[in-house]
């Protein structure tokens, strides 16, 4: 009908399906009464599940991946891995949202619709190999998140966050687009592959190349919130509805990383000599700035915002390791794995942490101050312990999952012989532990402000359960997850182990 091949039909199915659900929710929302609004959440969740089902279908049908839409959409294992990640993030975020929106009395279908739409955008970012598609995806995601951030219309902090996010976001994507346009100019194509070929033939010190490179990187680094392009993040995270903060800190970030890897590794890897120095600087700056800033934060959301920036710094270290070593050298592979594993782990542990903070929101408590979480153990022991688990995971203490990410990053750094960077990372790991422990201290070793037990909604229980379980399992038995990462990178299943086990 549309001249779509069955393959392309399959490939776009997850997104289309999400889109249908989004619009459906928008319509149904008009019909259902106030107290039935939670149906929206159910609908959205079902949508996510269906979409995941479709992704699984793709995975089984095209194990080697497939390409469509005139070489713009490449659904390879890498993309599929990230799609699952986005859907997981979205699903958990939905579970977290129900009660929170009730309390905020902002229960509208748009919320879920926008959530799903942003996921569509992310999918495009992860799967696009054509800068046009990538850019569209980016904007789709960005615009929906602008709205989501400002969703609490009556809350000034929310408005302000949205406005700042929008202005800076638009600004950065403008610069980004400028870079992309130059790349188009350099290559005469919008397809990453051909851009890469064209660029690799040019002298890497050609000013145009460099300007294009830099402007593009501004966009990328802005989206993953790396210093000095990070400053939107703390404000947006603090102002946004907590569940959205969680969603942004994992899914949006993962999407940004997917885009970054697509462009810088799949596409412009020939230019790595050009951008790696910048990345080195940025990663160190990011770790330093974020950790120092987080050290004395008293607002939990803001603290976690800075911590997530710091985590970006760590991941960038792995990226440095990749950029400074030959493709398919151990350092490169482990760095790459490191980033993917880190994102996977991070999705669950950070969402978990934000889920706990979300559940602190009550009629009269905003719940994002350190004092609000004080004595949490006496009010909700299970949550407190889970929070401890998430915090330790964020600090990279085994057997929590976070350690796995740290492990790969340190390993890649050592393999690429960046011992000093490794040392710095260690140092900042200490910083991290310090401010995570501040939260832990508040939960376990301080008296609660108000005594009554914390009401935990069903959805929240589910969200916490999933995240905690994932954090623990990935930590204790990471084998299958590592294998899935290997699979997504098309790396042979641990070749050496066979020799080892004989």
């Amino acid at each position, binding site marked *: 009908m549309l001249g779509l091949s069955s393959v392309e039909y399959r490939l776009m199915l997850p997104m289309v399906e999400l889109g249908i659900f989004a619009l459906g929710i928008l319509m149904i929302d008009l019909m259902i009464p106030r107290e039935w609004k939670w149906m929206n959440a159910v609908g959205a969740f079902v949508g996510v599940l269906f979409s995941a089902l479709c992704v699984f279908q793709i995975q089984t049908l095209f194990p080697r991946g497939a390409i469509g839409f005139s070489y713009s959409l490449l659904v390879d294992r890498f993309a599929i891995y990230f799609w699952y990640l986005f859907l997981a993030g979205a699903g958990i975020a939905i579970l977290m949202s129900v009660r929170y929106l009730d309390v905020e009395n902002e229960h509208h279908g748009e919320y879920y619709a926008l959530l799903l739409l942003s996921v569509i955008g992310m999918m495009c970012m992860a799967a696009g190999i054509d*800068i*046009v598609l990538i*850019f*569209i995806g980016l*904007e789709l995601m960005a*615009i929906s998140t*602008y*709205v989501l951030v*400002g969703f609490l*219309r*009556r*809350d*000034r*902090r929310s*408005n*302000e*966050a*949205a*406005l*700042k996010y*929008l*202005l800076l976001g*638009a*600004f950065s994507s*403008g*610069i980004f*687009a*400028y870079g*992309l*346009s*130059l790349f*188009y*100019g350099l290559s*005469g*194509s*919008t397809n990453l592959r051909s851009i890469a070929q064209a660029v690799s033939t040019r002298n890497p010190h050609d000013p145009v190349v460099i300007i294009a490179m830099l402007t593009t990187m501004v966009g990328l680094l802005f989206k993953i919130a790396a210093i000095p392009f990070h400053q939107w993040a*703390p*404000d947006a995270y*603090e*102002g946004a509805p907590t569940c959205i903060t969680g969603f942004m800190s994992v899914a949006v970030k993962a999407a940004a990383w997917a885009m970054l890897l697509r462009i810088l590794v799949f596409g412009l890897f020939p230019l790595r000599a050009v951008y790696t120095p910048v990345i080195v600087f940025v990663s160190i700056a990011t770790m330093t700035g974020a950790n120092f800033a987080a050290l004395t934060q008293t607002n939990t959301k803001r603290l976690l915002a800075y911590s997530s920036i710091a985590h970006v710094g760590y991941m960038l270290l792995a990226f440095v390791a990749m950029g400074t070593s030959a493709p398919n050298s151990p350092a490169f592979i482990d760095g790459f794995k490191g980033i993917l594993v880190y994102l996977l782990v991070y999705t669950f542990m950070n969402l978990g942490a934000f889920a706990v903070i979300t559940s602190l929101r009550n009629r009269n408590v905003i719940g994002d101050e350190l004092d609000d979480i004080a004595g949490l153990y006496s009010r909700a022991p299970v949550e407190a312990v889970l929070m401890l688990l998430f915090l330790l995971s964020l600090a990279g203490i085994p057997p929590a999952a976070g350690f796995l990410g740290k492990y790969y990053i340190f390993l890649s750094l050592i393999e690429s012989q960046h011992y000093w960077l490794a040392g710095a990372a260690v140092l900042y790991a200490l910083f991290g532990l310090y401010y995570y422990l501040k939260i832990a201290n508040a939960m376990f070793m301080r008296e609660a402000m108000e005594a009554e037990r914390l009401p935990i909604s069903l959805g929240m229980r589910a969200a916490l359960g999933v995240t905690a379980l994932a954090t623990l399992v990935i930590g204790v038995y990471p084998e299958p997850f590592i294998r899935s990462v290997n699979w997504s990178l098309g790396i042979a299943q641990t070749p050496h182990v066979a020799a080892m086990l004989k």
Partner: protein
Amino acid sequence: MAEITTLHYLVVAAALFVLGVIGVLTRRNVVIVLMSIELILNAVNLNLVAFSRMWGNLHGQVFSVFIVVDAAAEAAVGLGILIAFFRNKETINVDEIDLLKW
């Protein structure tokens, strides 16, 4: 009279870009800031169109169309949010958006 080469377009576009950036950095009125951003995007469009003419393919123009749409959408959302903001705090002055900091 010399004919207009791609380079000229690029220079103009670059100028637009810089103007846009300066606008974003200096203007105090949120609406005008938004417009400056539009300026940047237009610079991009100009680039794309010029290049597509240079290469003689349509990719650039397609891209520019999308960017125009995107710019519109952004502006719409931006104004919406701005209105919400204005409701709560009777101002659209960028300097007074400083509740969230540190």
